């Protein structure tokens, strides 16, 4: 099969050797043909594969926008000169870059160019008779003989039919020939599934690529942060961020709802070495399939998504949401509710921003952090020491001024641009920073109102995904795996058996085996065939006869040699 690929690649009718030699006079079509043949050559496939491996590496060295957009921004900020150059080369979007696509598209083109002609050749081979019997079977990789004694009365012709039957029962496709001569023979072939496996494997790899592309187009995904007690309704406005595929339309969103009742978090309190390490996150949900549906209680855990309305809901993060109330200078409640924080370490030192645009007369903003278990170091700075809320504390700086929220430009809720604001609280300021324990409240300087820390809730970060394509990815991947195993572990071989009558009445049978490609089990097959033929004609295995002096060691040496590395057989050596 390999030589077919190399020698009879598409366009091989054109005498490949001369085509290469007279390159300049090929003309346009000739050039195309030449290019195509280069592209679909095995060597090129190999080089493209290696190139693909190399090209994938930078994606692990540089942050990628697709998975860590904020790290990319950070990187660009830290490397003002090299950053944009790297960016120009798409090193922050390696897997969607034109050069990465070019490599895999070339590779897959090459694959098609490889697979189609091979499939054609193989289809023909499967339907044609095994090749004609070689003149000298003894030159084949494996060779053996059987002598049927004269008294058994088996003619050469009967013997060849018998041999064909034996081969057939071993799964070979057989073709009896030369019956009209005195040396009839049978040609047989087995292992077509090896090549089929190879083809299935390569085509399925294409299928995987196609399915991955489809899954990107057809699905949609979104994120939502839910604080305990809040409800998410599956509609576009229900998402914090939403990424539709190209084929998305809004009717695809089934209007289910889910409410986060409770998020229970368990930390390791037993082993000293892992004290405080999280060991369980469990979210309890109340879900409804639609507006009027009956509520159902469901459990959502890491590694264990909840399926609803064609989507899967994943628990991908969690943290604290301190509940605060801000009253403005006039004494009105300007903000009340939980504030989602961003945990930054194992002790859940969590950053938070509170924006109070409704505060009058001045808008208010707060920046700071929440500590579940606050300790104070010798410089008087508070730090978090445990993820459980044993000694919760809010540390905030306060600002007044125009928060810039009114002009319609979308702003990240987790950051506050303090450049144009006036700071009224801070650790280094006269008024000091705001430090609050639950239940405490603080009066802001300059009559700006009060802020109180009312309690603590937890939030769950949910990923919600619909991916109708991934099942096809799985199907093709499984097909590829099956094809790969067939291709690697099956053996394709040919057997010829020739019979003839000796003048003294004995019927002489000789057989030869040839592997196509790697086949370390060829010798074993030869032995098995030898045995089967002897059994068929009730001829005792010739251990004592042929091997004469070696007879004692016969079994042993045979065993020793049987499984020798016969991988390189004539078929594969001939290339």
């Amino acid at each position, binding site marked *: 099969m*390999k030589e077919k690929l190399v020698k009879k690649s598409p366009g091989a009718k054109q005498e490949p050797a001369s085509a290469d030699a007279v390159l300049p006079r090929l003309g346009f079509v000739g050039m195309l043909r030449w290019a195509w043949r280069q592209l679909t050559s*095995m*060597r090129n*496939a*190999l080089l493209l*594969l*290696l190139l693909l*491996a190399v090209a994938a*590496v930078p*994606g*692990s060295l540089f942050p*990628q926008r697709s*998975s860590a957009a904020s790290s990319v921004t950070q990187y660009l900020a830290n490397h003002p000169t090299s950053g944009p150059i790297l960016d120009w080369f798409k090193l922050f979007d390696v897997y969607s870059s034109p050069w990465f696509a070019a490599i895999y598209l070339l590779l897959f083109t090459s694959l098609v160019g490889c697979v189609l002609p091979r499939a054609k050749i193989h289809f023909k081979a499967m339907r044609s008779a095994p090749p004609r019997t070689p003149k000298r079977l003894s030159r084949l*990789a*494996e*060779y053996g003989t059987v002598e049927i004694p004269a008294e058994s009365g088996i003619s050469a012709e009967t013997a060849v039919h018998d041999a064909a039957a034996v081969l057939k029962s071993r799964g070979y496709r057989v073709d009896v020939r030369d019956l009209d001569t005195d040396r009839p023979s049978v040609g047989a072939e087995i292992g077509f599934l090896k090549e089929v496996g190879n083809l299935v494997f390569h085509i399925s790899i294409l299928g995987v690529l196609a399915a*991955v592309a489809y899954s990107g187009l057809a699905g949609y995904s979104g994120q939502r942060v839910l604080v305990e007690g809040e409800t998410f309704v599956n509609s576009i406005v229900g998402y914090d961020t939403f990424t539709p595929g190209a084929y998305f339309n809004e009717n695809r969103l089934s209007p289910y709802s889910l409410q986060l009742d409770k998020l229970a978090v368990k930390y*390791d309190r*037993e*082993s000293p*070495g*892992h004290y405080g390490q*999280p*060991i*369980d996150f469990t979210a309890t949900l109340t879900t409804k399939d639609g507006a009027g549906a009956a509520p159902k209680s469901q459990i959502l855990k*890491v*590694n*264990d998504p909840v399926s609803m309305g064609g989507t*899967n809901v*994943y628990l991908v*993060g*969690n943290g604290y949401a301190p509940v605060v109330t801000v009253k403005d200078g006039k004494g009105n409640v300007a903000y009340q509710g939980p504030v989602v924080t961003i*945990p930054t*370490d194992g*002790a*859940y030192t969590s950053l938070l921003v509170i924006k109070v645009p409704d505060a009058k007369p001045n808008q208010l903003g707060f920046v700071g952090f929440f500590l579940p278990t606050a300790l104070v170091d010798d410089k008087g700075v508070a730090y978090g020491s445990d993820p459980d809320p044993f000694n919760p504390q809010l540390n905030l700086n306060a600002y007044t001024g125009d928060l810039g929220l009114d002009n319609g430009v979308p702003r990240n809720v987790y950051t506050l641009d303090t450049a144009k604001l006036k700071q009224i609280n801070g650790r280094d300021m006269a008024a000091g920073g705001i430090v609050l324990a639950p239940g405490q409240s603080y009066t802001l300087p300059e009559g700006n109102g009060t802020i109180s820390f009312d309690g603590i809730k937890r939030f769950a970060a949910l*990923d919600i*995904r619909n*991916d109708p394509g991934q099942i096809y*990815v799985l199907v093709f*991947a499984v097909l*590829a795996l099956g094809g*790969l*195993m067939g291709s*690697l*572990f099956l053996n394709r071989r040919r057997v010829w058996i020739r019979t003839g009558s000796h003048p003294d009445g004995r019927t002489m049978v000789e057989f030869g085996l040839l592997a196509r490609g*790697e086949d*370390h089990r*060829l*010798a074993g097959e*030869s032995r098995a065939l030898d045995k089967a033929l002897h059994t068929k004609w009730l001829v005792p295995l010739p251990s004592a006869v042929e091997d004469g002096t070696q007879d004692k060691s016969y079994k042993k040496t045979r065993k*020793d*040699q049987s*499984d*020798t*590395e*016969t*991988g*390189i057989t*004539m078929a594969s050596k001939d290339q």
Partner: protein
Amino acid sequence: MPAINEGLGMLSEQFMLMAGLAYAVAFCAYAWDLVTYSKAAKAGLAAAESGAGMEENKHQLVAAGSAGLGASNAELGLGAGPQDRAVRPSSKTHTSDDGITAGDSMRYGTEKRVVARVAVALTIVAACVHAMAVVFRGMAAGRVPWGNMYEFCTTGGLAVALVFLLVLTRRDLRFLGTFVIGLVLVMLTAASVAFWTPVGHLVPALQSYWLVIHVSIAVLSSALFTLTFAMSVLQLVQARREASIASGKKDKALVMRLVPNALSLENMSYRINGIAFVGWTLTLMFGAIWAEKAWGRFWGWDTKEVWTFVIWVVFASYLHARATRGWTGTRAAWLSIVGYLCVVFNFTIVNVYFSGLHSYAGVGGS
């Protein structure tokens, strides 16, 4: 979640230490075997050159005793080594001894290599103690013992040793002993020096039966890749040596007589790599399924995913190389080596220094 059993954890570490010591002794035994063998080979050659005791030598050292190519080939009535087209390695007249290498059978010969036997026995003892250490670790934590770098290294080392012993029952790969057991020693040392972690529960991200499936197959495939890595390195050395002897130079590395010829090393590592590649394909697929369960997407080019993919592609190239004219032999061996280096890189540098979803530290953040 069962409570952590600290006592059992301590016991596991003591057993791990004992296993390490036993491996160290086994390592020395393998090395000693090579040295004595090389000495005996030299002596055998000298004797053969002086024309005396050739027969005796042949029996003493089947693989090395005869006086080099000429004698053995004349005797066999064959052409040159198995690289010659005319020779059919599977034919019944072919024996595995070509006088300069251990031939191609990788079957156990008739000669007794006492030191090598001792080395294998020691390896078995070490592996048993090691297995107990790993089992204790698992029992102490109440889960499979592969949830962090320490455990990947110790369990991975055990997998390498067991796979090696398993292959030894079918083929005489004792010449790989120093190499393979040396690698196991490195893994155990790295585990206890660089990655040591007390017994603990799994972080929620790792609590999944996919951890059992995905990681165990990854570890097994890596163990197989370890064997083929060693064989590919030897293949390169042996190929150079064969070429230099063929060009009439003196045989400098007598130890390499213990090692099969380059071609059969290549064939054997191809077979093992084939199995390991299927294993790696499964690792990739199960990883993707797990990623879908845990993070909602089956593939996201996370650093660990990137490297798993790179390894897969490198070994796919290796398999291609074996079917490409001009790429078999030495180049294929290099690809196999590069592939293994990627495995090691993925396991060490990527796990420790690259951030990503697969970080094995705590996963607190959102």
